């Protein structure tokens, strides 16, 4: 779909943004959304919200399960090495959860932009 896009230099954009940031803050927008009024397609946005929400919920549940599994593993590790489980295991798991989430969230955003 063809769209008109305003072309500005990076410096101009930075300056414009600074100015709009300042006015937004000063105008105390009680009861109003401090957004530019450009229309968004509400149905599309609705779909994006739902997909992102489902993804976020899934990541949160995965985190819960991962922590529960870690707790179980640490408690039931035989002998003296319960600490080693807590030392080595958690961080790679947490990193993987976050990285996978971010990749999927960006994919949803990319698809949103495609059918835009």
């Amino acid at each position: 779909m063809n769209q008109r896009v305003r072309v500005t230099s990076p410096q101009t954009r930075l300056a414009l943004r600074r100015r709009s940031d300042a006015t937004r803050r000063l105008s105390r927008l009680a009861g109003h959304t401090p957004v530019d009024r450009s229309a968004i397609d509400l149905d599309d946005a609705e779909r994006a919200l739902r997909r992102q929400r489902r993804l976020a919920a899934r990541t949160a549940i995965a985190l819960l399960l991962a922590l529960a599994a870690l707790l179980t593993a640490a408690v039931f590790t035989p002998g003296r090495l319960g600490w080693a489980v807590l030392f080595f295991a958690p961080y790679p798991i947490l990193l993987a959860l976050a990285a996978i989430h971010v990749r999927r969230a960006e994919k949803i955003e990319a698809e949103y932009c495609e059918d835009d």
Partner: protein
Amino acid sequence: MLGLAAISLVLAASVVIGVWGVRAARSTPDFLVASRSIVPGWNALAIAGEYVSAASVLGLAGLLVKNGVGAMWYAVGFTAGYVLVAALAAGPMRRSGAYTVPDFAEYRLGSPRIRRMCGLVVLVIMLLYLLPQFKAAGVVLELVSGIPYWIGVVGAGLVVSSAIAVGGMRSATYVQAFHYLVKLAFIAGPAVFLIALASPERRDAALNPSPHTDWSRPLLDLDGSGHPLLATISVLVATTLGAMGLPHVVMRFHTVAGARAARRVAVSVIVLLSLFYLWPVVYGLLGRVTTPTLEETDVVPLLVPGAIVPGSVGAVLTALVAAGAFAAFLSTSSGLLLALAGGLSHDLFGGSLSRLRLGVVVGTALAVALSLPASDVDINVLVGWAFAVAASTFCPLLTLGIWWRGLTATGATAGLLVGACTSTGAALASVVLDLEPGVVSVLLAQPALWTVPLAFVTMIAASRPGSVPNWASEAVLRLHVPGRYSTGDTGAIPRARRTPPDKRVDATDETG
């Protein structure tokens, strides 16, 4: 004296970097969010630098010696929080275009009253968090140089507040990034040396704590309450959910260019935290072997080097650790003070830059005054409360505000009130009342397990259905729409966008 010299060196370097980074903070956006021009890599370093506080550098090892290996759950929770930040908060929060959590509340709920309420909650959380930082500065200075505790605390307050009042967020970003590197180097470096220099018997004893004791059990027991699993889960809930609601961390995500960058910064922070949290454990395990009968366990990392290698090598290592601990104090307290000043002036009184600076000074004075009598409370206990309050207030506010259109100002107000009152009340009660160790004492000392669900339920129940105005619904939708339509999101149209090559224009690029 060597320790004092190392601390002075870190301090001097911080001032130099701060001055280099000032570049005249003139407006409120400059001061609070560095006019949104911080590069993501620096920002991740700065978040980690600010987040790895005295609680991680000193408190974690101290608690490990005192309570056992279960203390490692604190580190796990501190890091796990960033999975939630990446998943639930970072991107949409950035798109809201708000500077602070109270700003976001006003954007989303359209009520100036709720903004002031959030400002108050920010004050509570930040003060609870600042206290142990000043305590840490005091004990470190006392240990390495013999300066009395109160002089150390007051001096640290003077240094930090003047640096922040002059520089603001931009200088804080580079200084905090530098502090992350200092902390990692000065905690990890000596730890490696200590592992190498410790006698084989000691190393063996540290790696193999005697089994079937309370100490070697990987659960957190609080003062022998007899319910370690309950206490562990509650600490985990507080630290994981609390990280999401910490105002000074949330504020940091507004300093990157867009929602996409904000999310990625959260992932980088996990990497940086994972790198760091391995090392306090080393001090804890070695401390268990070398200094098992300590009263004030918060100084364990400073004593372990001397116990393992007496003499000048030990003194040098101690000085490095002291400098690392002091860097932790500096970076965290400056970030906290910025958020506190934001809460005081920006959200509560609505303010100019001079008020913001005044806010920094007032905040420091409050924190210093409160930390003088707090010298015998464990650092991690205090920090745990700050996390519990954040988890019971801003975590539900942000989660529901971002993902559920039904949240109304009434619901949010009720939930914030309930969450703030129950969590701070429980923490206070656990100090004031002298309870028998048991389920009740655990649930008062670590209240997150019940206060967080309570706050969520209150917010949902008190939000009247059907009274959501159209603009509020649109405000939520905009948080999840990528690209130029959303507020404050200056770029980040994903690369997959299929623009015909001849129409591809600069206006939608990443940077801004």
